[in-house]
């Protein structure tokens, strides 16, 4: 596939001139004149890195294809004989491409990233956790504390394992809900029917709902990890996001 072009309507700036020969690069990642690699600052965000629209539903195969494509083109090994500037740029670009890929391929991290992009410097009010959830988390933690104080007998172990399975199921349900809201978000972004004021309202509401779900998920994850620790298991195996 060919290199992804930058979206239309992107204003030209000094950054669009090649750092080496000063000719117009027009959003290409290698200067059309001198073929030098261009710094990652030409990208405005992670979606832009892969030339993908800023949406929550992504074609993961396409994403992976473009990631491999960039990884090959920017790989520092290819620049071993290049100038120090080019080596630095290739390293910086590779790092950015890696971070962008890791963020976007994970549906949860993708939502978190999008919220950050959408809210920018004007952070919304952090979501208030539902009080009953906090109370429940506190109860689980207190029970866990009690269990830790004594030896972990088979009965306690089973109780904690069941508890963890129950909470993991709830987290999975929250993640399902997040996907539903993600689809609503994409529909809003694509659609143009509603009046702009209603759209702004709905945008805000959907962002808040996504933040609320992420918050609930964070509480559940903390308790699930604590349960795993108590059970003497590596919590990493239980925190990994579901991959789609």
């Amino acid at each position: 596939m060919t290199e992804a072009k930058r979206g239309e309507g992107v204003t030209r700036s000094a950054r669009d001139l090649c750092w080496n020969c000063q000719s117009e690069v027009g959003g290409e990642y290698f200067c059309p004149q001198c073929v030098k690699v261009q710094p990652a600052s030409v990208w405005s965000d992670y979606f832009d890195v892969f030339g993908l629209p800023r949406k929550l539903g992504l074609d993961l195969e396409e994403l992976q294809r473009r990631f491999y494509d960039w990884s090959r083109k920017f790989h520092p090994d290819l620049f071993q004989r290049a100038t120090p500037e080019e080596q630095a740029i290739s390293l910086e670009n590779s790092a950015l491409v890696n971070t962008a890929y890791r963020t976007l391929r994970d549906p949860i991290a993708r939502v978190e990233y999008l919220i950050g992009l959408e809210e920018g410097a004007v952070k919304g009010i952090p979501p208030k956790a539902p009080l009953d959830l906090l109370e429940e988390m506190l109860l689980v933690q207190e029970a866990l504390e009690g269990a830790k104080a004594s030896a972990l007998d088979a009965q306690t172990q089973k109780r904690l394992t069941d508890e963890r399975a129950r909470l993991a199921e709830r987290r999975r349900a929250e993640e399902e809900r997040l996907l539903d809201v993600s689809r609503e978000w994409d529909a809003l972004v694509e659609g143009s029917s509603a009046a702009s004021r209603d759209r702004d309202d709905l945008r805000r509401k959907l962002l808040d709902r996504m933040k609320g779900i992420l918050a609930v998920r964070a509480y559940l994850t903390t308790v699930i990890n604590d349960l795993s620790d108590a059970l003497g298991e590596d919590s990493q195996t239980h925190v990994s996001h579901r991959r789609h």
Partner: protein
Amino acid sequence: MAYSDKVIDHYNNPRNVGSFPKEAPGVGTGLVGAPECGDVMKLQIKVNVDTGVIEDARFKTFGCGSAIASSSLATEWLKGKSVDEAAKIKNTDIVNELKLPPVKIHCSVLAEDAIKAALADYRGKWGKKEAAAGAAAS
């Protein structure tokens, strides 16, 4: 990340860990959480209903060292203060005392939120004895 000596001290020797019965006379309970990290903090005050002075405070925090230290410190500061004085405790006071780094400021915010929630709960339940008595009678 390096914790300050004061954070480590509170973490190793947390003050006033525990809880009061929620419905006990003069007890106000605040339960708050930090959605960024999933920390949960419960902070309680026990107020002398006649004088309005906080006689005792307890906390239970499930979270990082800074969250534990922030709530531990908060309970120390609350004791002996009037309810009105307690409302003036700011998260920045906690940040300064514990020398919290920027990434841990939200822990102090959590502690301030917990104090406010406990005070609000106390006021709602026991704020004015007369008012409470009047409410109970109606």
